[in-house]
């Protein structure tokens, strides 16, 4: 579990987060929402230990994150950035990189690592993509491979920065369904999302940021009822009750 307590973080000469307190809990999808530049990605980077913090604290499984080595953090929290290079390697090789935090001398991947990779590829339904080069895959297929890499990393928390950006609607739904499954199986899944309707439909909990501060954290219904989204994001949402749960739409 990851806990942010009164977190302040940012970049040299540009503080971004201002006293954010939030928990990433196992078994739930937490959607981080907010307008551009409000600190969503900064929050994720800081929580993954990739950004020095200027105040407050981050607790990883109850201990300050500074007490862990980078490898130990990587064994507990997987981070998938919004954009990244696409090297000309096979999908299997990409997923295998998720085992790097567990490599010991002489830094060669063993049978257990390869078994984990096969399991991860199977879990996301991408076994048939294993031997294809990444540049050949579609955006949605690549996102599956990155998710498989996070699974191979075997971390209890998976932090994803805008995983549905640039994907078509069916791929977005597939990625959200996979994220939901990951949470149901006991992982803490945190996603920065721009599609409010998708976020409210799939997340167990939401956190709304504005100008580096946490405006509200609660269930999608609590967020919807509070009308905070309309104040912060400037859009009006509607809700429809269905058998599968509430669905949201832009008015």
């Amino acid at each position, binding site marked *: 579990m990851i806990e942010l307590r009164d977190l302040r973080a940012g970049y040299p000469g540009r503080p971004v987060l201002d006293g954010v307190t939030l928990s990433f809990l196992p078994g739930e999808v937490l959607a981080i929402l907010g307008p551009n530049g409000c600190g969503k990605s900064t929050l994720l980077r800081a929580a993954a230990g990739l950004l020095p913090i200027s105040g407050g604290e981050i607790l990883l499984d109850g201990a300050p994150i500074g007490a862990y080595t980078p490898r130990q953090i990587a064994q507990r929290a997987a981070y998938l950035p919004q954009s990244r*290079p696409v090297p000309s*390697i*096979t999908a299997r090789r990409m997923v295998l990189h998720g085992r*790097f935090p567990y490599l010991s001398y002489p830094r060669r991947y063993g049978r257990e690592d390869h078994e984990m990779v096969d399991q991860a590829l199977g879990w996301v339904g991408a076994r048939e993509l294993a031997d294809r080069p990444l540049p050949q895959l579609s955006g949605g297929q690549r996102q599956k491979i990155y998710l498989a890499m996070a699974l191979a990393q075997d971390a209890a928390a998976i932090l994803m920065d805008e995983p549905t950006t640039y994907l078509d609607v069916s791929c977005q739904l597939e990625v959200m369904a996979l994220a939901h499954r990951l949470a149901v199986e006991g992982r803490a899944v945190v996603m920065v999302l721009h599609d409010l309707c998708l976020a409210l439909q799939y997340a167990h909990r939401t956190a709304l940021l504005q100008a580096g501060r946490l405006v509200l954290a609660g269930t999608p219904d609590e967020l919807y009822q509070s009308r905070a989204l309309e104040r912060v994001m400037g859009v009006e949402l509607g809700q429809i009750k269905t058998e599968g749960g509430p669905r949201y739409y832009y008015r």
Partner: protein
Amino acid sequence: MKRWRTSCTRPLKRPLGLVLCLGALTVLAGLASLALGAADIPPGEVLAALLGRGGAVQTQIVLYARLPRLCGCLLAGSALASAGVIIQGVLANPLAAPNVIGVNAGAGLAAALCCAAAPSSVLLTPIAAFAGALAGVLLVLFISERAGASRITLVLAGVALSSMFSAGIDAVLTFFPDALSGYTDFRIGGVKNLSMARLAPAFWIILLSLLAALSLSSRLDLLLLGRETAQSLGLPVGGTRMLLLSLAAALAGAAVSFAGLLGFVGLLTPHIMRRLIGEDSFPLLLCSALGGALLLTVCDLLARLLFAPFELPLGVVLSLAGGPFFLWLLLRQRGGRRT
């Protein structure tokens, strides 16, 4: 940070076949290099000379003229091509090669200073060249960090650094005209007038650096995924980049210390190999080292045979082959591909 488009549009092939093929071609080119030249020597006599059982003249030619030259090609080719793989990977820039970003020129300036200050020290030259190459690569790293690693900025900065280092070499030679005997050869790059004794320090530096780079290939693989992903997988990115660039500097510096400012091999070879086997760093380093050795050996053979008995400088042949490829690369290069 942008990544370049690699051309792999079909499943990546296993690299073992390519390693064996390159190895076999290098052995053949090496034998041809020992046998052919101003005086052709039959293969049987080449082998006899290598075993110390040949005629006096053939033994002299093979052991003291052609063998050091062949070893120079093998060492410089493998070192510069591997340095190219490392630098391109670490800086995430396809145009970053030792000769493009000022690493070779930095090594050349330090080598010139060393030759001017201690003309009789053979051992010091590769060490000085390493220091110069390291200074060049660190300056480029500093600029890439400060300027946001823009591909064009990096190359332009490299061109500026190369010009400054080259001006430094000219200045040293103005005051110490004898510092680099055969300065023109040094500037163009070549493997003439080498001895096994002169190659020995460079051999050890190149061998150890190459082995170290191969052992760090899994870290180089992670750097290819981007800084944030590499960091999130537990890689200490800053230290790893420094370590790998130091190895690249050692490789390039050792090569420049005896072969001069050879261009293109560090740019050309990694690109060809990347197209053939993808970007897995271990096979890419191995194949590039073999490919660089093969390329220089073949170019040296052509340099000696094309207008025999006249001999073209190796750097000229390499540039005539590498220049068009480089231009093709520039014309073909399009926007980076990211998710």
